């Protein structure tokens, strides 16, 4: 490697200096012999200066407009095969566009695996997403976030509530033309009132596999076979809430009691008088099996989907044991360590949406069971008592029954039995 300094040559008689009016080369550029380096201007003429050697330009002697003396350094050129290293840095003007990362990745990273009831580790749900329209060639989005369009097109788009970024411009450099806008609006894509919110495009297809598919099958089977009927009753929880608060305060060392253990207790007690609710209906064999034990399923949302861990022999558990067991099962279901027999074998189910809960729900029966009790959200509501409204903590129970084997009157009586125990919580602890 050698560095050749090309000096400003003596251009003509009596000329001592010349002004650089244009550079034909830039540092880093590879040039051949006789390629033009610069145009310089004297007070007589403009003269092009060719390069006497081939090589890579490494330095220019001045900027456009600078006046240089004859004999001063015009450019410095690195000669011989300095090529390969610098070649890589040379970027031709007509270079191919940079790869567009958004368009290239069709598949999103797979979602976290979802355990199925039988197998904690389910196949990974496959997400298939359709990529949005291919962006304009050679127009990286980050560099051209503003759409290229004339003010008239921008104005029309704004008035029509169209976000120009949605339109693929057909003009040079991806410019959105009037025709592009016409075509976009003619495609029926004119959005609703709010133009401040860009329209959302694209369809994401998600394969229903694993636990989700099992849930889907069970739900469809349940609603197809069972003649559901829903029954909603309100419960005054004021007294129970006082008791609950008191117990939690008195026993800070024990697991904190939620409403759920009380409802489990009320339910298991009511089941003594309504054995037809604690049953499994084998509709193929046309046999209803009534169970003495109360195996209470607690339908719960986990990060992996809907699961129903089961409180075995709930009738044997006191409040704190119930609370403890519910917590243990919920944690096991959530982190996927629940055993198979902890997730099956229920004879009746309680469905709770926790803080959400709503006013009314119509739960789907966990077939082959025949009843499900849903807990709605508790709220202080005005209740007419005697001659005035009083604030009471009210909560609805929304239940569903299999009308093939449960009559409406029985269902209503069963719910009333639960309600009475909850409203007079002392009765929960008085063995009849």
């Amino acid at each position, binding site marked *: 490697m050698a560095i050749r300094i090309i000096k400003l040559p003596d251009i003509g008689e009596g000329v001592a200096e010349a*002004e650089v*009016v*244009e550079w034909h080369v830039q540092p880093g550029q590879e040039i051949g012999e006789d390629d033009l380096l610069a*145009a310089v*201007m004297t007070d007589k003429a*403009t003269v092009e200066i060719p390069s006497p050697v081939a090589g890579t330009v490494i330095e220019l002697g001045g*900027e*456009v*407009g*600078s006046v240089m003396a004859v004999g001063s350094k015009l450019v410095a050129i690195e000669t011989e095969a300095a090529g390969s290293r610098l070649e890589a840095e040379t*970027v031709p*003007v007509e*270079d191919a*566009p940079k790869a567009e990362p958004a368009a290239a990745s069709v598949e999103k990273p797979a979602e976290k695996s979802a355990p199925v009831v039988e197998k904690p580790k389910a196949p990974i749900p496959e997400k298939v997403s359709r990529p949005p329209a291919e962006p304009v*060639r*050679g*127009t990286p989005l980050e*560099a*051209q976030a*503003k759409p*290229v*369009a*004339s*003010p008239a097109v*921008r104005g029309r788009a*704004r*008035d029509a*509530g169209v976000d120009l970024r949605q339109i693929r411009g057909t*003009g*040079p*450099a*991806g*410019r959105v033309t009037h025709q592009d806008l016409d075509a976009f609006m003619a495609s029926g894509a004119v959005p609703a009132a709010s*133009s401040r919110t860009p329209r959302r495009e694209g369809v994401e297809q998600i394969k229903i596999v694993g636990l989700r598919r099992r849930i889907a099958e069970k739900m469809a089977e349940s609603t197809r076979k069972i003649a559901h009927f829903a029954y909603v009753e309100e419960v005054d929880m004021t007294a129970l809430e006082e008791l609950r608060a008191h117990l939690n305060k008195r026993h800070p060392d024990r697991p904190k009691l939620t409403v759920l253990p009380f409802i489990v207790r009320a339910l298991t007690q009511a089941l003594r008088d309504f054995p037809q609710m604690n049953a499994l209906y084998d509709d193929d064999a046309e046999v209803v099996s009534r169970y003495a034990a109360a195996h209470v399923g607690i339908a719960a949302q986990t990060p992996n989907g809907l699961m129903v861990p089961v409180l075995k022999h709930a009738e044997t558990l006191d409040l704190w044991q119930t609370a403890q067991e519910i917590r243990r099962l919920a944690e096991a279901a959530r982190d996927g360590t629940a055993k198979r027999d902890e997730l099956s074998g229920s004879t009746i189910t309680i469905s709770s949406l926790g803080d959400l809960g709503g006013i009314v729900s119509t739960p789907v029966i966990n077939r082959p069971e025949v009843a499900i009790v849903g807990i709605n959200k508790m709220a202080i509501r005005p209740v007419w008592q005697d001659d005035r409204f009083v604030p009471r903590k009210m909560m609805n129970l929304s239940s569903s029954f299999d009308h093939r084997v449960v009559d409406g009157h029985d269902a209503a009586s069963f719910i009333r039995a639960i309600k009475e125990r909850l409203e007079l919580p002392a009765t929960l602890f008085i063995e009849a």
Partner: protein
Amino acid sequence: MEEISTKVLVIGGGPGGYVTAIRAGQLGLPTIVVEEAKLGGTCLNVGCIPSKALIHAAEAFHHAKAQEKGASPFGLSVASPTLDFGKTIGWKDGIVGRLTNGVAGLLRKHKVKAIAGKAELIDGKSCVVRMADGDKRIHAEHIVLATGSAPVEVPALPFGGPVISSTEALALDAVPATLVVVGAGYIGLELGMAYAKLGSKVTVVEAADRILPVWDPELTAPVAKRLKQLGVEVLTATTAHALSDDQRALVVRQSGSVDKLTIAADKVLVAVGRMPRTQGFGLEKLDLTMQGRFIAIDDQCATSMRNVWAVGDVTGEPMLAHRAMAQGEMVAEIIAGEKRSFDKTAIAAVCFTDPEIVSVGLLPNQAKAQGLEIVIGNFPFLANGRAMSQDDEAGFVRVVARADNHLVLGIQAVGMGVAELSSAFALALEMGAVLEDIAGTIHAHPTRGEAFQEAALGALGHALHI
């Protein structure tokens, strides 16, 4: 107190305010504009317009003087020209008067009520105007803040006596024999060059290491060269300290030097920038979100308070009249219920030095800083027939475009009369032109505009006339 209700209340009658008011009037909105000084604001009264008048007069005088010295290449000679500076100022005042009267007429025409007085905000819906014949209280659905900006003072050189701002520099009794300009931004250089041409011995003091530091040295080099030809001494990397004890000179110090320099100065023009006018009219009561010294606005010129809008210099850089006017027009239309946002691609900046400088969009170094691969086309006026025939060949037109799709990112020019090319440059950027659009447009011959086409051709690799 007299109470008035209106739909739109505009505070400030400069380009931002009066355009808001005119457009609002056109759209049928009941509108009041309050101005404490004169309609037209800084621009018409003590800024753009009077400075251009002074620059024009100075140029004419300078030209005549040059011919007197026998420097005319085309053989013109004149007998010793003189300038009646009082008449120059009078002529300038006449132009200002015509334009400010014109604004008043336009406001009347569009049924805008102009109130002369100082507005004091009460809250986001009302203000009180103190007037000689009693105070008025104005209630409005919408308030548009267009209070503009004022020259920045240098603590060591408070305005007064020989220390003047651009406002006073446009209304001097006589051409000062010696003038020191503090600040080599566009205001300082425009006025400094004008006074140099009018006969002052001018020295420019700049703290940065070169003149017009917002632009690249290539673009400003022709101005630096002309300053030298005019005999203007430019002291860069130099800070102004204080007036000398006799108030007849300015003491400065060059960075890296302990010695102080004393420069004779009949007048010291301090032109180190402008600051938004945000105090003294009750703005603090609104407790608006600020962005630095400026009122923070969104792309609709909405402030943090509902139905309080702000336009112009009070909202930030670039502090240019044409930006304020575009904002004002838009705000009036938004108030009238139209869908608008400030989505301009570029705002041209023009510096009326000799030669003039225009810059629209990105400079080459700004484009590179954004990580863009660019091509640059540059065509010198040395090779432009019109420039030769005007006997002023300094400067060039430069086009900056994306290398991949040739979208034009920026256009700059320096040279005599290039301010008039700014409209072509801005149009090209606003329309989303690519190099081929400019190269493919026939530019009339012989004009300086041909250099624009040639620069685009040059960026494409096939300039014709160089």
